């Protein structure tokens, strides 16, 4: 989307007469990118679908809070990241009560998931990523899979580029150690 397109879209989002149509365009434009962002954090398709619906619901109800300081994509990514992390925290708390997920493990759950095409090693990689703290996990996914620039991640997560580089470096080190211990 060009800068002019985005400006026009923002203008339409601010007008009650055109905002629903404009928001539909936003959903069409960004839903797939947001879905993959969320899916890499929550891992299951059903959970990613639920979180994505919540992200758009939140963006729609808080449309007045969107000020033009950031791009629409950055604003939506930020909501998606927060919603995904909240979702995982709630899930973790429930898992502590039920202990089912802890016994099964992320890799085993993924191997049993119909919407996971990876092999055993890929599932292990996802398990290693899932064990990282929130910020390291986010930075690793955004850099490793999406090749996103540190400057863009910095805007999204409100963290300095230096801190993000350090987080990515530590994340890579931890994942490598995870596999070297198993080899």
């Amino acid at each position, binding site marked *: 989307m060009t800068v002019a397109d985005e400006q026009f879209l923002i203008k339409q989002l601010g007008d*009650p007469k055109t*905002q*629903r149509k404009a*928001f*539909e365009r936003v*959903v*069409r434009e960004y*839903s*797939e990118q947001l*879905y*993959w962002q969320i*899916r*890499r954090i929550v*891992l299951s*398709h059903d959970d990613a679908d639920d979180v*994505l*619906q919540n992200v*758009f*619901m939140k963006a*729609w*109800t808080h*449309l*007045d809070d969107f000020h033009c300081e950031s791009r629409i994509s950055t604003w939506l990514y930020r909501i998606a990241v927060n919603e995904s992390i909240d979702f995982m925290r709630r899930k973790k708390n429930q898992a502590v009560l039920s202990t089912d997920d802890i016994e099964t493990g992320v890799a085993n759950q*993924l191997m049993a998931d119909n*919407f*996971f*095409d*990876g092999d055993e*090693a*890929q*599932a292990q*990689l*996802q398990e290693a990523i899932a064990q990282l703290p929130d910020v390291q996990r986010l930075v690793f996914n955004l850099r*490793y*899979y999406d090749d996103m620039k540190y400057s863009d991640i910095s805007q999204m997560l409100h963290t300095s580029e230096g801190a993000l580089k350090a987080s990515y*470096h530590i994340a*890579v*080190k931890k*994942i*490598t150690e995870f*596999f070297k211990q198993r080899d």
Partner: protein
Amino acid sequence: MDNEEKYLNQKFGKENPFRVPDGYFDQLTDRVMAQLPERRKKSRFVTLRPWLYAAACVVCVVVLGVTFLSYPTKMEQPENVAAIVNNDNTYIDEAADYAMLDNAEIYACLADN
């Protein structure tokens, strides 16, 4: 890219291992839009709220300003007290003249008592 990143890249690549049900993204926009409620129009109070806050602040400043200016200042009080003291001194001086006493006689009288 450092050695550890190369190790991960060679071992796993960067391919996305996840997939979605067939046609998921084709229906996604319609599904999302169908769930969105109608946006409530902002009430007049919400729209005018910043202006109302500003007006309230101006009123407070004016009331405080008027109160402050109309209240007697501390500088005025010592002058009044001094005037009263001066009046007292004048009265004592007049009384001393009338009794034909000077200060030394008054002090002597007070010392005797």
